[in-house]
């Protein structure tokens, strides 16, 4: 079995309103000194195939669905489990 972990985040310099409002909530809970909060999305996909196929499949998924290249950067990690 293969485990593909796809992490999608906003590119550097792109506003993250969700992160900002989470930071505000944390400050209201009394956490001091927070410089920034960023929200990332992670998709964990389990699939029966070899690592190379898995990697290609994850790349295709990213291209077709998970990422809008205008605002997102991503990272793919594939491991056998």
């Amino acid at each position, binding site marked *: 079995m293969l485990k593909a972990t796809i992490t999608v985040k906003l590119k550097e310099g792109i506003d993250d*309103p969700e992160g900002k409002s989470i930071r505000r909530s944390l400050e209201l809970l009394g956490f001091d000194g927070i410089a920034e909060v960023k929200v990332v999305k992670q998709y964990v996909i389990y699939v029966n195939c070899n690592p190379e196929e898995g990697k290609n499949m994850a790349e295709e998924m990213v291209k077709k669905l998970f990422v*809008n290249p205008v*605002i997102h950067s991503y990272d793919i990690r594939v491991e056998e489990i």
Partner: protein
Amino acid sequence: MRVAILQMEGTNCEEESYIAFKETGANPEYLHINNLTEGMLESYDMIFIPGGFSAGDYIRAGAVFAARLKAKVWKDIVDFVESGKPVMGVCNGFQVLIELGLLPGTDGISEVPQAALMTNNSNRFECRWVHLKKTKDTMFSRDAPNKIMLPVAHAEGKFFATQDIIKKIEDNGQVVFRYISPDATEPEYPWNPNGSINDIAAIVNSYGNVFGIMPHPERAYFPFHHPDWTRNPRDKGDGYYIFKSLFNQINEAKSR
């Protein structure tokens, strides 16, 4: 004028849109993506992608709808757009057109998205009436007054693109409606409800036949849709003029 109103799991503005087209004199038809097959779209005069929460807005608003259209009938959509027939997306439909790469379409159809409709600056679902200024006459706007009011209802409507693309959009004159404040000055929040760059609310592709708009014209079709309808009598709702523009344009093109 046959209009294909595309549906999928989670679209929810198709009925209002259907009524708007019907009242204007067109022949709208629902077309569910599961029933869509190759060669089907060709026989229609227009494609309309309604608002809603297709696929529950998971991953990104409009991303799943766009990916499924691309997988199923991408060539037909490209042919449709290149034939010059109108394609319009409202709200979630606008997000789909952006994800498909049909908009902004500064240099024709793009393989990958050229822009994004991102999470609103407020990080909230913004649902209220907004003021809009018409900045271009297109087949979707030519019969509309210069200032109109329409309702917005979205969480991801902030128009974003790189500076290069924004410059191209502006140089090409592709912005059709911009958010304005009630006194027609530059809008701060909440009059620009999402933080869109250059207050962009609606754009058209460079050829002029693909149109995306965040506010909902179908929700302001009848005079009594407007919140001040008892105090401020109108012949038609402000959204009516978008449908009327299209109807006139298509009929004129057909009779030529």
